[in-house]
């Protein structure tokens, strides 16, 4: 009876994994397709990769997106770490419930609402104070920092919650000032969470289409905006090549992160 049960389970979850990976694998295979017709096989070729790197529109948009992602992820990591720290280490203060709400809500908020509301804020601010003058990289950075901040805060908060507080208490008993306590004890302990928060923010910012479309100005198209306008008109083989490159990069990063975290958790287990 038990054996049969686990066989059904294996079959069902196996089908689930096939569902998760079949489209990705198909896209990778098609990226090496020589044929101009995406879905007709014309033999192996690296043609579309060459085509991709020659496409100036895609390349310049990729550069804009990488810049925005780097700045937003860094800002979000600083602000998100502060928010996560405040929420998990500081006892009651006025507005704590509000801050909890503001940190959690962006995680599920439909992107069209976030995008529209930030755009209207920027327009109103410009009307009232003349800042920000026009929209572009800076307004996208502000928007991305805001929603990435929430992800960092949640990751940092859960890391702090699982952390043994005795180390921090010991440092405090030994007379460490709050700032040195934070930088010498707490920060190194939550560093893995901050790094994974940074990486998550970086990929989320690199991937965002909807919010960036609302808050960007003319001439500041990000990579997803260029991809979207291309694939809207139909499938384009260069996008397959681009997707493959991104998938490879992400896979390497995720595998590296898991290996590092796994090693660290084993190290922690041994030390306990």
């Amino acid at each position, binding site marked *: 009876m038990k054996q049969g049960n686990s066989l059904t389970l294996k079959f069902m979850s196996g089908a689930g994994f096939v569902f998760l990976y079949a489209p990705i694998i198909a896209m990778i295979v098609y990226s090496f397709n020589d044929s101009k017709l995406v879905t007709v096989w014309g033999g192996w070729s690296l043609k579309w990769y060459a085509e991709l790197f020659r496409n100036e529109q895609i390349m310049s948009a990729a550069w804009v997106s990488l810049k925005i992602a780097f700045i937003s992820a860094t800002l979000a990591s600083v*602000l998100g770490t502060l928010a996560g720290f405040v929420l998990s280490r500081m006892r009651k203060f006025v507005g704590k419930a509000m801050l909890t709400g503001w*940190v959690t809500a962006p995680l599920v908020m439909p992107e069209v609402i976030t995008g529209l509301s930030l755009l209207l804020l920027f327009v109103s601010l410009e009307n009232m104070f003349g800042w920000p003058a026009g929209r572009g990289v800076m307004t996208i950075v502000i928007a991305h920092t*805001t929603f990435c901040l929430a992800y960092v805060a949640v990751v940092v908060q859960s890391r702090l919650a699982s952390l043994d507080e005795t180390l921090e208490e010991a440092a405090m008993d030994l007379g460490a000032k*709050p700032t040195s306590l934070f930088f010498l004890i707490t920060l190194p302990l939550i560093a893995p969470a901050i790094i994974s928060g940074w990486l998550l923010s970086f990929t989320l910012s690199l991937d965002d289409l909807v919010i960036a479309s609302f808050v960007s100005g003319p001439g500041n198209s990000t990579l997803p905006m260029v991809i979207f306008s291309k694939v809207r008109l139909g499938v384009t083989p260069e996008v397959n090549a681009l997707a493959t490159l991104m998938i490879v990069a992400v896979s390497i990063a995720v595998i590296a992160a898991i290996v590092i975290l796994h090693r660290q958790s084993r190290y922690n287990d041994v030390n306990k």
Partner: protein
Amino acid sequence: MMSETTIDKKKHRLTWRLSELRLGRAAVILVPMLWLAAFFFIPFLVVFKISLAEAVIAIPPYSPLLQWDSSSAYLTFKINFGNYLYLFESRFYLDAYLSSLKIAAISTFFALLIGFPIAYLIARSGPTKRIILLALVILPFWTSFLLRVYAWMVLLRKDGLVNDVLMATGLIDQPLQILQTEFAVYLGIVYTYLPFMILPLYTSLEKMDLNLIDAAQDLGAKPYQSFFLVTLPLAKAGIIAGCLLVFIPAVGEYVIPALLGGSDTLMIGRVLWDEFFQNRDWPMASAVAVMMLIVLVGPIMYVRNSNKEVE
């Protein structure tokens, strides 16, 4: 005498340190708080304000609520509920809301159906296998959302792989129109949001005490009985969290209906987008956003509260 001054000095230093502490504490709290107030909370108030304005052909394309007439020294305050009235009067918006809720609910259900066995298998695997399987779930979550939707565009075309396979197996003799249908939208939502379902399910299933199932089976429960009477109730928190994490963003989804859906696939996120980018009716787009928020505020609060409990 001497000792008193030392004590005074110490006291002084202590109060100084305390006030420094309080200042530092306030600063640490205020920095993220002010950022989120400015760029998350206040924008909603702006949306609400503009939803009460009228669309005009100007830059920016909406009428001001307050107007100061300097010649007559009159301050006029103009609120326009027309956008909201129109939302309720026109079948179009109501249909779009209902159809979004329906599409999101059905997709959530299927995501749960597909996600549960995966989460269950991962939670019951050994430590190394568990990490590998978790990585396999997380990997698509980190790869571009837009490109994963695009991958389905390639697969579902008339000459795409799905139709080729179906024709080769003889199930159909004419290629099916799958792309640009509501079915493709369901598929896209389930596919892209599946990791959001699996991860909370896994977390709650992992915490479960397996002895409880053994106990139930020792007491004569059949496997399906122990599943429905023991496992499911214990995984309730994960099921609710996973469903909300899929349902809420799916209601406002724009990219998936735009790329996979047909022109008749009505979703409110798409309506908002078109209202804004094509009709340039900012006040109407704002009213649509406010109504969407009102519909979703309950589920969003629920997510927030469950997050608080974790804390």
